[in-house]
């Protein structure tokens, strides 16, 4: 068990800078997810923590040690790779045991350890199989087993669920979360899927172009996004962004009655961007904000996504699954003031 800290991590590949000073502290036993679009530096950060790559400058600390110059094996970490990296010519038992080869343990202890890990992952009956006789989910579990067997201080996961189909991904997501609750090791998990990040993480680190955009619990990043990028990246469907104007405590949107917004850090009058999630924009409701014409409906069963054109801009709202409006209807949309997010028009930062 150990905490992990990154201090002003910078990485160049040739002349291309991929990490612009990453600062992050992961508490002991925390499940942290690095999420962002491809090329945001999340995998690079993970590989630097693992020691597979070195940082150009900055420090990596695991526990109380600065590990910059330590080989991966000396860092007390284990990693699960996207393509699992389990050896096709070895049985499951040998694959899981591979991580123990250098451990100073008796042979009987090693066997017992492999058996225990197999039991935790409920694959005792698969131990003598070769990887090509396993399903995708089982291979994934072997890869996790291989990491677990060494009982490392920190688990690193590099997009481990990307190669699984949607159903299996949901299932493995839950299994990894349960596993974490059970063994309690620190986990750093990299994914590009915001749903994975939301469902599994204690805290989410959202990255873009080599910079951290926001660090927070799933609730924080969803309800209080730090900037436009986070607001759009987290949550599906994407947050609606409308142009507006703030003046003396009131927000004016085109063709909409102004509503109150008690943000304190604003000038007397300035343009703003107003964000509201489809989840919070409901058809009908008590305090209608604006009205528009329904373009398209996407029924999802329990609810229906409604695409509404308001003053030439398309926004997404939610209606009930049982009685949705019809295409062509003019509907009114409402949202409560606390679900309306204001962003600076130029910097994209949240206005508080």
């Amino acid at each position, binding site marked *: 068990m150990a905490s992990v800290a990154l201090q002003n991590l910078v990485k160049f590949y040739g002349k291309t800078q991929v990490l612009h000073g990453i600062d992050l502290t992961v508490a002991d036993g925390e499940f942290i997810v690095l999420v962002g679009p491809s090329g945001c530096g999340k995998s690079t950060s993970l590989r630097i923590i693992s020691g*597979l790559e070195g940082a150009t400058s900055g420090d990596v600390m695991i526990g109380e040690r600065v590990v910059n110059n330590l080989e*991966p*094996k000396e860092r007390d970490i284990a*990693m699960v*790779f996207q393509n699992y990296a389990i050896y096709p010519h070895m049985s499951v038992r040998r694959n899981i045991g*591979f991580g123990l*080869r*250098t451990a100073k343990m008796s042979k009987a202890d090693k066997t017992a350890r492999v058996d225990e890990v197999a039991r935790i992952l409920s694959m005792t009956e698969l131990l003598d199989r070769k990887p090509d006789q396993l399903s995708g989910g089982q291979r994934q579990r072997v890869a996790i087993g*291989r990491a677990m067997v*060494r009982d490392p201080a920190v688990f690193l996961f590099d997009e481990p669920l990307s190669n699984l189909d949607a159903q299996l991904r949901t299932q493995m997501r839950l299994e990894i979360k349960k596993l974490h609750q059970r063994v309690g090791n620190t986990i750093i998990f990299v994914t590009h899927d915001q749903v994975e990040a939301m469902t599994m993480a204690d805290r989410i680190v959202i990255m873009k172009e080599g910079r951290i955009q926001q660090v927070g619990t799933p609730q924080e990043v969803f309800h209080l996004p730090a900037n436009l990028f986070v607001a759009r990246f987290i949550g599906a469907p994407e947050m609606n962004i409308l142009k507006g104007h703030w003046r003396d405590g009131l927000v004016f949107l085109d063709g909409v009655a102004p509503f109150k917004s008690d943000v304190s850090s604003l000038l007397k009058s300035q343009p703003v961007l107003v964000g509201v999630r489809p989840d919070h924009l409901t058809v009908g409701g008590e305090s209608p904000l604006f009205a528009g014409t329904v373009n398209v409906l996407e029924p999802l069963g329990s609810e229906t996504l409604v695409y509404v054109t308001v003053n030439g801009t398309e926004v997404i709202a939610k209606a009930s699954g049982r009685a949705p409006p019809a295409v062509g209807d003019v509907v009114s949309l409402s949202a409560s003031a606390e679900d309306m997010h204001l962003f600076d028009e130029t910097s994209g930062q949240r206005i508080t």
Partner: protein
Amino acid sequence: MSYYRNLSIAQKQIAWAWGFLAIPVVFYALIRFYPTGNAIVLAFQDWNLLGDRTWAGLDNFDKLVADPVFWIVFKNTFVYLLLGTPVSLLIAFAIAFHLDRVRFMHGFIRALYFLPFLTSAVAMAWVWRWFYQPVPIGLFNNFLSTLGIPQISFLNSTTNALPAILAPAIWAGLGFQIIIFMAGLRSIPQTYYEAARIDGVSGWTVLTEITLPLLKPTMVFLVVFSSIGFLRIFDHVFNMTTNNPGGPLNSTKPMVLMIYDTAFNGYDMGYAAAQTVVLFTVLLIVSLLQLFLLRSR
């Protein structure tokens, strides 16, 4: 045309497949299988290339078994095989393994290794023949004499001649083997090595437990391919011992050279064909044995 139109899709595909296959089938039947069959028949006949072919039964094979030269040649052929294949594969793997990590002038170095493979065996054999000459002509002996080491007779010694001929033959095939090994090494996913690095196993363990097992298909191909090459060795031997092909005292003579000798110097076609049949059988058994031993379980 209506007949064709009434065929099912599967039948049409078969018709097209045979249409495309017709030329190679005819080619193989006429150029490969007919002479092969003919040679096998000839092994049981006597023929001096001009007269009639007369039935000889197993006479040619009896003669072969009783021929002391055949047994020397048989042994030589296996020495070429048993020295040439492992030595060449070991050298090729060692070079490929290290070349794979070299970034500096990688393409140039690879080209240098591949160059001998493109060179004519005859030209190469003659250059090496020159290397092996005594002072003041030969390169190696000149070098030895400047160091004050006594002369080595390479091609004139019954013990040194075979390895001396084998050396350029191994060198000639190296480029091809290196390229194939490198392709095999490149096909092993990088994450296997990264995972091993995180597990902290030694370089030797990575080599023996990950790299070599995953290279097995490559090795099976190269073992079979180069074994066939060494069993059929001819041009290096013929050109480097041109005054007395296969000499001295038959100590370098491989089977193909004996066949050539019997057929085109002795004009004993039936006897040569019998030797061919033996060579064919040896090739078949060695190849099948290797495939069996190296099969994936």
